[in-house]
């Protein structure tokens, strides 16, 4: 499959993740809302690091910031950080067992949420730290199905 089509598929999954993370949903969902964008961007950084990299992750985060009117650059910065880490260590992470992958990504998502917590604290919107960890937990639990679903898409359309 040509590079542009691979890229289109990656962008489409990212757009779906973006829509999932800004849709209106009931309260219980909103509080533990999974980090769809880091999940999907993280998968592509792991599986197709040549197509999905820091700049794409940054752009996705920028769109997320624009769509939610959060301070521009906030999620973009956090996403580019985790994209860099995953891309840098993608060979190591790929060899891990799925449980170990979940633990590793849990750490990475924690960094993501902590960066957002930090930025919010600096621009004087502090919140309690504990609720930040709930989406991390939910996202880590969602990693195996997301991984399998996206692997199916990657094999079906031969993205690499």
């Amino acid at each position: 499959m040509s590079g542009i089509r691979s890229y289109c598929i990656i962008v489409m999954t990212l757009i779906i993740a973006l829509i999932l993370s800004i849709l209106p949903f009931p309260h219980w969902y909103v509080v533990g809302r999974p980090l769809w964008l880091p999940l999907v961007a993280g998968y592509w950084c792991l599986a197709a690091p040549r197509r999905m990299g820091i700049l794409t992750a940054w752009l996705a985060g920028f769109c997320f910031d624009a769509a939610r009117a959060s301070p521009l650059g906030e999620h973009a910065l956090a996403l580019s950080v985790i994209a860099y880490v995953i891309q840098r260590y993608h060979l190591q992470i790929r060899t891990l067992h799925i449980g170990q992958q979940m633990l590793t990504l849990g750490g990475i998502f924690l960094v993501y949420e902590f960066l957002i917590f930090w930025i919010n604290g600096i621009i004087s919107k502090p919140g309690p730290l504990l609720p930040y960890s709930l989406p991390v937990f939910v996202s880590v639990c969602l990693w195996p199905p997301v991984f399998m679903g996206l692997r199916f898409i990657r094999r079906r359309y031969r993205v690499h």
Partner: protein
Amino acid sequence: MRFRPFRRRSERSLFHHQSYPEVRFAITVVVSLALLILRHGAPLGLPLAQVAAETGAAIERPVSDAISFLESIGPALATRAHLIRTNQTLKREILRLRAGLAAEKPLVFQNHRLKALLGRIRSIHQQFRLVRVLRIDLDPYRQEVVIDAGQKAGLASGDAVIDANGLVGQVGTASAHVSRVLLITDPSEMVPVEVAATGLLTFSIGSGIPTRLRLPYLPNDTRVRVGQLLITSGLGGHYAYGFPVAVITHVTLRPNRSFARVYARPLAAISEDRELLVLIRQPSHGPAFLRKPAFGPIHKEHRR
């Protein structure tokens, strides 16, 4: 390997053989930080945020429509007997409420008279607008909802938003067709409140948790008790006097600290509301400096 002292130009280019993720990473970090600092220093992002709100609403509106369509399927499938029964109960309820209103009318007049005697008439906002919730954000650092009316409908930043039970928040930014409502539970939101039973004045600050407000400025000899009602005090002129806000749920006296730890639960069912009321401020109310919007151009002809 063949010896080539002079490489061709394309082979000498910086990113030819390998890309440098560190360089890209540094670029994105610098650009993000620059954006954050610029935004923090001056509201440059405001026009952009309005455009983003409008485009976001373009996605959210069809979804919201679909959800209300799904919600409307239930009533459409209800049986005739069920409808008649609900109709009867509702009619009875109307009668009961009318009777209650009629009984309270003298009290309202009396109240007005007494307030006039005290010389502190605080008129409650007159104009309401029913709006629909497009999206709810209940992150710990960001408690807000997006509603489907904006400047075109006469809304301006600072308008109070209520539901059937109590105060919900205020309009933060109003773009043409959508607005963001900052909830009272947002960490940056502060509401001047009054304990209804005692008249004690204080502030409530959002905690980032949808079911909790903090009242951090109550001293340790406070007489606030669990279960007492908080209403808006009207001080500062931002919210009108007398809207129910929250109920005290937790009081801990801390003699080793300056202030007691007091929490309250908002009365508004923020996470379940799909419809809210915006109270559009009348230009004639309050002193002149309060009528000025916090930011953003408001056209006079849109506000009656």
